[in-house]
């Protein structure tokens, strides 16, 4: 995990994740935001693979890039005002500056707390131990209840989404 190639891919991938995520939240045109988001999720999937969790990387690409990003693109194209209006009230400006300030404060607090815990400065053990067989076995034995609960949750979520989206517009 300390070869130059690993360093290179680590830095390229993390820069890609951060840049595309920043692009996804800062473009004015929502279609550009959706595309950058898809790239950010793709880079995150590659990042998971780099960390040794191959299966999770492919799940991330399937679920996030294939479903969530496409869903967000559909909604962006359905909700017509794809470009944020340019009018800015002072209330909006205060809200934006406060939001950025709060986020920076949270980031600094996280950084300080991360670097003040020296027990976190560990290197990874060699040889990743990812095995899909073990994962599947655990999923249907030890974690069968969370699995069923997730299935129920997804069913309810899909039903709710269909019911919400197919409702008639209520009269004002």
């Amino acid at each position, binding site marked *: *995990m*300390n070869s130059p*190639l690993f360093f290179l891919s*680590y830095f390229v991938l*993390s820069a890609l*994740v951060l840049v595309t*995520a*920043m692009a*996804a*939240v800062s473009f004015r045109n*929502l279609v550009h*935001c959706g595309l950058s*988001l898809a790239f*950010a*999720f793709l880079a*995150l999937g590659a*990042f*998971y693979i780099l*960390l040794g*969790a191959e*299966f*999770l990387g492919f799940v991330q690409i399937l*679920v*996030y890039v294939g479903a969530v990003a496409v869903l*967000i693109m559909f*909604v962006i194209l*359905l*909700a017509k*005002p794809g470009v944020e209006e340019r009018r800015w009230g002072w209330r909006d400006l205060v*809200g934006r*500056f*406060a*939001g*950025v300030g*709060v*986020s*920076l404060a*949270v980031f600094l607090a*996280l*950084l300080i707390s*991360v670097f003040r815990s020296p027990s976190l*400065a560990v*290197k*990874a*053990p060699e040889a990743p131990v990812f095995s899909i067989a073990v*994962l599947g076995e*655990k*999923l249907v034995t030890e974690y069968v209840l969370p699995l069923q609960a*997730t299935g129920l*949750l*997804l069913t309810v*979520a899909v039903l*709710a*989404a*269909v019911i*919400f*989206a197919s*409702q008639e517009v*209520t009269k*004002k």
Partner: protein
Amino acid sequence: MNFANLSFDFGVGITLHTYLVLSAALFCIGLVAVLARRNAILVLVGIELMLSAANINFIAFWRFGAHPEEMVGVLFALFSIAVAAGEAAVGLALIILVYRHYKTINPSQFRSLNG
């Protein structure tokens, strides 16, 4: 020059810290989207980015932790991805519903929720 055997360390090498810093940065980018954008879809995008930051943490702690063979971090991240997908579906359906009613997706314009 054999590239793979060329060993150099940037001081300490890649430790758990670097992953946690990356995940903190991603989390705060999502937080900016939630707090500072005037668009409900981008708020949802920000929430997805924050959930992804949490997933990075799960996997990094799994990779660097004491018992990686237990797969707990990977399983947690797997469930988190499933829940995030459901959340995105419901959230986007709600956004479409609200858009039909108000003809806008600016969250600060959603003044009343009844009727």
